């Protein structure tokens, strides 16, 4: 049974159809890539999966439950977590605090226990801190715990987003352009990290990515969107050779204008 099942989902913004009757199944513990030219509806799809948007029609099922229309925090509690294309960290909080906010669902402190601080709260907080430090080490941010998120380097911010998303302890992790703007070294690190997440933590991963080397290297299954429609899907070798995909990326090659870009 697929972990995530997107069934005939359509999303329109006042006439502009960003996604049109898209169906995607994601099997547990796979790494799935969503690719497509700009404006294909990739991020819209992520926003639908995580509750930022509601689908105009269609259904989203996760782990046997229908999740479309649920509020954001309920979807996070169900086990879906994400990163953002335009990094959206809590900029004025430190790295470790960002991760701790991600761990919110797994902590129990409330107003009363926060003030009285019984031993179990102290213990819980200590455990949470340790886990957060481990997560930061895992994504390669060792020693940067107390740096404000806004002061981190670009690549570090992307990693921190992953750490924060992992702190939610998701079963499904959505990565929106995880290597955007990274240099080759950082990209290789991120690729390695993505594989480790699946292999070591058994997290199912769906990622949006533009760098074909990353997509073809790390994804086991690829879905291609263009103009809000699914035009192809399959294993990387098949998708790579799909004529429709090549056309979507490079055009049909029929019209050649002089001096055209």
């Amino acid at each position, binding site marked *: 049974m697929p972990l995530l099942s997107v069934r005939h989902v359509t999303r329109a913004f006042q006439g502009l159809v960003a996604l049109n009757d898209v169906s995607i199944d994601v099997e547990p513990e796979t790494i799935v890539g969503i690719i497509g030219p700009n404006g294909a509806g990739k991020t819209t799809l992520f926003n639908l999966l*995580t*509750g*930022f948007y509601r689908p105009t029609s269609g259904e989203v099922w996760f782990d046997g439950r229908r999740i479309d229309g649920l*509020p*954001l*925090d309920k*979807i*996070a*509690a169900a086990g879906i*977590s*994400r990163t*953002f294309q335009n990094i*959206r960290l*809590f*900029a*004025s*909080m430190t790295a470790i*605090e960002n991760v*701790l*906010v*991600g761990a*919110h*669902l797994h*902590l*129990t*402190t*409330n*107003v009363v226990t*926060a*003030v009285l*601080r019984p031993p179990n*709260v102290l213990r819980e*907080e200590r455990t949470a801190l340790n886990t957060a430090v481990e997560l930061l080490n895992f994504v390669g941010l060792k020693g940067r715990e107390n740096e*404000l998120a*806004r*002061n981190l380097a670009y690549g570090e911010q992307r990693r921190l987003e992953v750490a*924060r998303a992992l*702190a*939610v302890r998701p079963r499904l992790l959505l990565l929106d352009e995880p290597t955007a703007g990274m240099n080759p070294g950082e990209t290789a690190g991120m690729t390695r990290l993505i594989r480790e997440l699946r292999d070591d933590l058994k997290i199912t991963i769906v990622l949006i990515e533009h760098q074909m080397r990353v997509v073809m290297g790390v994804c086991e299954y690829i879905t291609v969107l263009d103009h809000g429609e699914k035009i192809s899907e399959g294993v990387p070798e098949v998708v790579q050779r799909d004529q429709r995909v090549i056309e979507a990326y490079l055009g049909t090659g029929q019209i050649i204008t002089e001096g055209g870009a």
Partner: protein
Amino acid sequence: MNKLREALAPWSPSRLRERAESRLRRTAAGTAVLNNAPYALLPLAAIAAGLAPEHLSIRWAFATIIAASYFILRSSRDLFAMVVLGAMLAYLPQKMDRFEQGILFDVALYAMLGIGLNIVVGYAGLLDLGYVAFFAVGAYAFALLSAPVYGGGFDVGTSFWIVLPMAMVLAALAGVLLGIPVLRLRGDYLAIVTLGFGEIVRIMINNENQTGLIGKHVNSTHGITNGPVGVFSIPKPHFFGIDLATPHEMYYVVLVGCLLAAFAAERIRISRVGRAWEAIREDEDVAAAMGVNTTRYKLLAFAIGASIGGIGGVIFAAKQSAVFPSDFNLDVSINVLALVIIGGMGNVRGVVLGSFLLIGLPDVLRDFSINISFINLDNLGADYRLVIFGAALVAVMVLRPEGLLPSRRRQAEFEQVRAIEAERAT
């Protein structure tokens, strides 16, 4: 504005301090003095305040407290400094007259309100201009539950200490009541609606003097709240046989309230709850995507902030022994918000300092005068205190827009903004 700032820069407090510090640090003795001076000076200043002639004492006292608290509060975690400050705050009113003790009471009361509002505005980032409503709820809860019939109360005679938790709950409920309709509002719109809420509560209290639908059953002639006449003859609280009657005695009550509120606010801030608020302030949608129930936590911020305001109201009513609707106008909300901003948003210590400046300063300025040789401006303070006060506020906002003692984060944010501005200028 930028030119003004540039021109003033060499004389800005931080530059002056830097220069003085670097000069002092050149010698070993100077370094030692510098490291310990604020603390060594404090007891001296406190003694000086005690020895000063009666009519001068308040000026001394406040100058000492403001200067000392600035140094102490900004040097963060020094327990010794905190103890000294606490001892000073406890000792000084002994040397003051009733009027001065009244001022000190107001300072402490407003500090407490500031701590409450700071939870809503500073921690959760929800601009609340109707904070006075919760203050009013607390004050009227105590007034009505304790005052006799001829004073406009319900003649139940409930004890101060029993009303305290009740008022907390009532004010928290009022906070949730305000919170629910404004959940979806942000920024300016939130400010407008909360401002309206504060006014609505005051006007309701004011108009509740006719025999209304509910009033009929409670009190046949005065409505519920006794309208513009107010509620009076509120009994004084007792504490194990001690009457808490004077501003001096009530000052200690509010001081303890202040400490408890600050303690609770700080502990909540650094907990999971505080982090959730902060995440909401930073990016509400992302906070929700990380599993934070934003609705619940926003309401929680309103409720906690309101309950502190409610306690402030109870203490206020007990000290005044009479409350009137006019005690709860917009000024209170504005003052509390202003002291939070001037002191440094998001920082309890900043709020306390802000209260000294905003609430204490205007009254201290009353007996401010200049008498140098032929210049005799005896009534300078009395006549122009609010002008001086306004100028001081403008100066603070120009020189330190992030407040006097901003939280670490606020500071970082403002530095970022300044860096961007500087980049644009070049």
